[in-house]
């Protein structure tokens, strides 16, 4: 059985612990947390004082104010809800790519990132669920807020191996009915496939009032296409399929195609108010995550 420390080095934990996830919108929940709730109550975070009226519970009286003013005031707290987050981790074959410089596959990077997020959110008493998928949903772990839930997630992340083709659109459409309570959807994927279908599926999520963050995982090779000699590109998602070419002659066209693809995805996400965070596997994922969280808090 793996332990959380297999995925999170102490340095990583130290960096992530200095940030807090703040949902941009108030999400319904019943557990206390840091997320603002439209329901005022008697929770952890003080909101305002009001004068005592008969019927109020005496335990909510603010005795310090009574001592100073000789009047009864009731402390009102803003009730905190818990964040119901679901991590969607792509386990398709394309995620198995290991670049020439990074030394880690995109899938490994994705699972570590998912572990980090799970740990962080469970520490905040948020609920975290996990979905692994390729061309269909492989495993669905519903969100739970118990700290012990982390181990279940990590075990699943360790057990999953990448393979098969990617069908992001269809998988996301299938997931929408399962995630009936609105919450935070964190997609960790390279998002390879038909961009139009993907955006439609994301719109479906948005329609179900989910907040979506996409961590798009790249390898440096995919962004820079550094190949020089004749190369046979074996398809990771389709056994036996390969392409033989002299990369130097195709680099320009590839880069143009890549740029076009990224722009299409970025503009689609912006249109649906989805956060798209590109992350490269040779960059420390913890730093990238911390950077994003800081940005997210600022926006929030």
């Amino acid at each position, binding site marked *: 059985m793996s332990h959380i420390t297999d995925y999170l080095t102490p340095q990583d934990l130290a960096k992530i612990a200095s940030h807090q996830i703040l949902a941009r919108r108030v999400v319904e929940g019943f557990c206390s947390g840091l997320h603002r709730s439209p329901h005022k109550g008697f929770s952890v975070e003080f909101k305002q004082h009001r004068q005592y009226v008969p019927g109020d519970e005496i335990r909510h009286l603010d005795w310090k104010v009574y001592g100073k003013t000789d009047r009864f005031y009731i402390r009102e707290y803003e009730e905190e809800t818990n964040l119901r987050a679901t991590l969607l981790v792509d386990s398709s074959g394309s995620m198995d*790519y290991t670049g020439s410089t990074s030394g880690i596959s995109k899938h490994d990077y994705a699972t570590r990132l998912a572990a980090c997020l799970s740990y962080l959110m469970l520490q905040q008493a948020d609920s975290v669920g996990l979905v692994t998928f390729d061309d269909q949903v492989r495993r669905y772990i519903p969100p739970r807020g118990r700290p012990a839930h982390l181990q279940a997630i990590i075990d699943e992340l360790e057990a999953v191996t990448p393979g098969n083709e990617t069908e992001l659109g269809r998988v996301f459409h299938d997931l929408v009915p399962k995630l009936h309570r609105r919450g935070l959807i964190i997609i960790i994927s390279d998002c390879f496939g038909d961009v139009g279908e993907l955006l439609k599926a994301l719109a479906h999520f948005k329609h179900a009032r989910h907040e979506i963050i996409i961590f798009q995982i790249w*390898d440096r090779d995919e962004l820079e296409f550094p190949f020089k*000699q004749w190369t*046979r590109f074996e398809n990771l998602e389709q056994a036996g399929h390969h392409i*033989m070419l002299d990369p130097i002659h*195709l680099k320009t066209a590839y880069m143009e195609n890549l740029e076009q693809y990224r722009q299409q995805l970025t503009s689609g996400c912006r249109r649906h108010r989805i956060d798209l965070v590109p992350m490269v596997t040779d960059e420390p994922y913890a730093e990238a995550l911390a950077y994003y969280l800081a940005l997210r808090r600022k926006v929030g």
Partner: protein
Amino acid sequence: MTFWNPILLAGAAAFSIPLIIHLFNRRKFRVVNWGAMHLLETVIRINKKRIQLEQLILLIIRCLIPAILALCLARPVVNNWRTLIDWMLFPLIALVLFACAWLMKGVARTVLACLCGVCVVYLLCSMLGLFSLLPDDITARAPSGDVRSSTVILLDNSYSMDAAQDGSTNFEKAKGITSQIINDLKRGSDISVIMMGDGAESMTDAPSSNRKTLVERIAGLTPGFGSVDTVDAIETGAGTLVEMSNVKRDLILVTDFQRANWQDVSESALSNMKRLANGSESRPHSVTLVHTGKTNPNNIAVENLVIEPRVVGVGQEVTIRADLVNHGSKTHEALYVEFLVDKQHKRSKTTRVFANDRVQVLFSHTFKTAGSHIVEVRLDTQDLEADNSFQYAIDVLEHIDVLLVNGDPSDQPLKGETDFLEVALSPHLWESHLGGEGNKLTDLLRATSIETVALDAEALKGKRVLALANVKKLTGGQVALVKSFVRNGGGLILFAGSNLDIKWYNEILGSDENELLPLPIESLAGSVEKRAHPARIVRQRFDHDALQVFNDEAHRNGRIDLTEFWMWYRLLPPQGEDAGEGLQVSVLTRMENGDPLIVEKRVGKGLVIQVATACDADWSNLPTQNGYAPLMQELAIHLATQINSPRNVTINQKIQAVLPAKWVGQSLAVFDPEGEEHRVQATASGAFAVVQFHETKRPGEYRLVTPDGVTRHFVVTTSRRESRLDQLTDDEIEKVAEKLDARVVRSLAEYREVDAQRRHGREIWKWLMIAVLTFLFAEMFLQHWFTRRIS
């Protein structure tokens, strides 16, 4: 189209290198498990044709670069534009069409393939001579004046070219034509002028394109050199021309066609000359024979001088015999012949020389001073100046000191071992001792006789010859002294006798360390008692310098062949492993039974002569023969002068002087016949300094002057074959030209007319080089362009 370096065409196979690299790269690929396949597939679907086209274009360019470079290095010469277009342009078009057809699809492919097929069919028709779009007569050949040329001019500078006609010499005319030919050549032409006299030699170290300098140097040339070896000259000229690089290649022979130089040239030699002169099929030469001068065979020459005796001493009378030859058809009734010593008139004679006849004129002279002298016989005629005189350098010696070691002295007259020898070497001295009058002649040799015990360094001082006569043996110190004496150039003569310790001679004197005994002594042969059956010298013609005086059939110098030898030592010729060493020993003469009588061996710088019998009258009657004195004198003179180098040499033979050791390391002056000074370094050689001078190209008098002002004369002689001035007739010259496949001209105007008719192929290597560079830049540009925007 021809190629100068056809073998380099094989380099065109290098076109396959880029192809092989391309295929090799395709085979040696890298495998990547790739995820972003959807990005690649789109790219490939859109760019596949473009990439293939780009790769094909680059591949064709890369293949063409080495192929065209090889073609360029092979230096093609185009004689006909049709060949160029048919053999280069159409194949290239066919190749490009084929490549394009391969890339295209549908109708375009069919059209391009058809066009390619048409090109191939046309090529085949053109190769088989069935059809050609272009007529045959589209010549690419350029007139002479339009192309640079490689020209070799063989200029006859033998002294026959000095013959005067119409107020000018043949050589002056030849120089004028040569200079004009050079001036007419296109700028940048390579020119080599080869002087033909006494061995063909180029005027410049390498072919030059500096016409002005060449013309200036030609203007300063003078004739006077020896005979021409025509075959050698053509061979040298053709060899030089082969190394030169222009398409137009001219071999021009400027000569007087002297019969003496051509009559001995065989048909096979002419055939060989034709092959050499005309070059190869890919590099043809134009051969032109320029005939200067007309036949005027009237010429009389001093052909030779003979000096007797061979070595001259002060006060000795010397006889000089001049051989005069009249090559003309006119009899000289009173030819004035002048005899000069050291440029000073001494005597003159008039003689009659018939047409085509030869006479001898004798002069005698007695030198009053020792040293180097030069004698000359000169004719007073108006014909060819170069052969009207003949010089001869003589070293006149004061005297030659000879030390005789008497191994069997006696108080009785002529009983001592060296008594006869002493008289034989210095007869005039003894004659005066005996009261002779009226004889003012002096002896060249000055003999001193001592006993064995008296042989020491003091006794040997100043001596040039040492004779050991019947000496039993020497002490160790004496052997070392004699060894040093011989190795430093002294002469040693060993006479046999009854006192000899044979064992000591064989083991000490003849040891490997001393090497002073030419042949070991085996045993005593003959007997004094058997005088009735004496041994004699083999009758023969003597080759050795010292014995040549006995070759006179009139026996004016006496004879030795009648000598009776009763006793002698049998000398053992080396056998077995020592046979090679025996080659150093030469036998001057043998006895009838085959036993060597006189043998000679060089030891260091000196010489040892071993005589198998005694020098007195005990073992033979040699001392009583009239040839005894000449024999002993010649042997002694030979031993004394063998270290001297010859004063009279032939062309290209080095002159050498042996000087006192004090001049070692000094720079000495050598003046050539034209008075030009050359400096030579004296080097140490044993106890002497030796000076050598190799640049004896020009015949005449050379002078070596030592720092103390002493002059040594040398004379370089050449063959007098050039004195026969008759030339080949016009018909004969035409026949020679026909055999050489050459054109004959007799003036500059004729040459220009002939040259103007010649056409030469055009070299296209420069265009090919430009094509290679263009393709290189194109490859770089296209490579960059095709992969542009690569970050």
